[in-house]
């Protein structure tokens, strides 16, 4: 347990180290998610446009 606490403390620099890693990994994960949803949106819009054209 104390090993884990020591690990998290990172020699007293824990706040800096973990915020650097956490924000980076979070940002990259969010980028992945936003790209996939952009894909989904593009697909939906293209299908909707095609459907509208077929009607008109």
């Amino acid at each position, binding site marked *: 347990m104390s090993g884990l606490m020591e690990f998290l403390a990172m020699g007293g620099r824990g706040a800096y180290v973990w915020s650097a890693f956490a*924000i980076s990994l979070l940002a*990259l994960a969010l980028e992945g998610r936003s790209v996939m949803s952009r894909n989904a949106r593009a697909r939906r819009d293209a299908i909707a446009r095609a459907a509208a054209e077929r009607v008109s």
Partner: protein
Amino acid sequence: MAWTSLASPPRFHAVAGRLVAPLWIAALLLGVAGLVVGLGVAPSDAVQGEAYRILFVHVPAAWMSMLVYVAMAAWAAIGWAFNARMASMLARALAPTGALFTALALWTGACWGRPTWGAWWVWDARLTSELLLLLLYLGFIALVESIPDPRRADASGALLAIVGVVNVPVIYFSVVWWNTLHQGASLTLTAAPRLGASMLAALGLMTLAFWAHAIAAVLARARAIVIEREGSQPWAAAVLEGRA
């Protein structure tokens, strides 16, 4: 496979689609391995203690920020020179990823700088030129998004990206040309590395992880751009029906 066949948007869309998931899985595995080695296995630094570990995200992010800009400028130039739409779309896909890595490099650099050298930010050559890189990315994105005609947007973006590529060598050589706060290169092509073996391993793993993520994100974004721009083409209808 002839690489030039990827210049056709439908072919690119199909091939890239198969690559995205494996690349993200690779990024995840490499990232976990890199973090385990970097945070657990690698010893603490003699001078900087534990805070140095931030370099395992800071350095790969900075490397990617420069690499992606050069790639973006190169693809934009190819798109402009050969009138190849797919190359220009790839350049547009690269820009947000590059901007994100630049922002991360600046953020993690600040996290590292504060405990180690006492400053979140200094106006030394490397930090300033990295900040300029972020502005160059944002300028590129703003310009291409503001031009309604795709061909004009592609060509204008290419010109702007090429003009800005001068900044990348400045970032890279800034620690050689100016003797200010940011530390010099720990890894060069010619001299032996000044990092320990486990540190090198962690750095290598994290770099590969960032590469894999970047390629996956860029390919996925490029696919979205292809659908946005060419979605009304006949080939797109077949693809979209097949998925929907």
